[in-house]
């Protein structure tokens, strides 16, 4: 079995995400705090990346649209429940105006997550992405994080549309709160 903790944590997903952002020349991170995303934000704040902490995910999509108009590559990081906060912004801003918006979605509420309030959006977030015709990649292995996040970012700017990489517990080891 390749599920012992040592092999899961040998590759650090946070470092891999930051590696992908460097590969793709992404200079800015827009985010709403989440415990799975926290190590990425923490390490990014020590690097040359600019961070914008927003109060709500749909606000983050507005800032992402502004970065695009201003010519800057950026990534939005949010929880699966935050996707629920932002549905109209996805539709009437990003999709209606064909604005690229790479999103790293921390999938909360999978089996093993003790926060039951996260469960509903863990079930529907991937389906909602599909319904909105948003390309997404589900990441279940820390070894593919760098590749998958990089492809997701490239796809957003190539297709002029939001795209998503969905980080599962299998890839991150899971953080509950």
């Amino acid at each position, binding site marked *: 079995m390749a599920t012992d903790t040592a092999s899961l944590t040998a590759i650090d997903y946070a470092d891999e995400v930051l590696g992908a952002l460097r590969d793709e020349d992404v200079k800015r991170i827009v985010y709403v705090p989440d415990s799975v995303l926290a190590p990425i934000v923490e390490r990014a704040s020590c690097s040359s990346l600019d961070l914008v902490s927003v*109060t709500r995910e*749909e606000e983050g999509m507005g800032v992402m*649209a502004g970065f695009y108009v201003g*010519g800057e590559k950026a990534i939005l990081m949010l929880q699966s429940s935050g996707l629920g906060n932002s549905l109209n912004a996805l539709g009437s801003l990003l999709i209606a105006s064909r604005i690229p918006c790479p999103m790293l979605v921390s999938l909360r509420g999978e089996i093993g997550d003790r926060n039951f309030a996260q469960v509903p959006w863990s079930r529907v977030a991937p389906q909602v992405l599909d319904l909105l015709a948003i390309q997404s990649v589900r990441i279940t292995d820390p070894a593919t994080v760098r590749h998958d996040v990089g492809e997701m970012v490239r796809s957003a700017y190539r297709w002029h549309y939001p795209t998503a990489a969905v980080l599962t517990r299998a890839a991150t080891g899971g953080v509950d709160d």
Partner: protein
Amino acid sequence: MGLNRMRAYAALRPEFGDAVVIATLGYSSWCLYAAAHRESNLYLRGSMGLGVPVGLGVALAAPRRRVVVCEGDGSVLMNLGGLATVGACGPPNLTILVFDDGRYMTTGGQATHTRRGADLARVGLAVGVSSSRTVRDEASLIEAFTAAGAAPGPHIVVATCDEPDSRPSAADMPPPYINVEQVRAQLVVG
């Protein structure tokens, strides 16, 4: 004479300079297009509440360009958190104009909370922008807008509009093409 949006936009037009001017959806966009259309205007078509965040993103990405957001009271009330983010980020090149008529004009003129005491200029001060004030006539609006351009922001100018606008005709509304790429082309170097 009090203010309305159309007169305010017409008076501001010569003061915009090379600023990127972003209007939130509905009346804010319609009136800007009818009264002061220019190539560097970006008209949002949906996503009420997101004029300020879009302006924040442009201001951070294009720090040498003045960025002006034209908001309505209803839209700002939908996303007060967005003002707090502007206060936290503090982009010096951002000016937010809020045309406060106390009504949801696009949907038929229903009252907003500014009619019931909500004071958006005080909210601005509370979130820590460089300046935030209310103006009630054209001369004060121009003076406030010019002063905002001369000092590091972010600045908020709430223009109380106590005179009604006539609804722009369909011909005066921004055409349904999307002008994101057009404005972007002016900001992206090379």
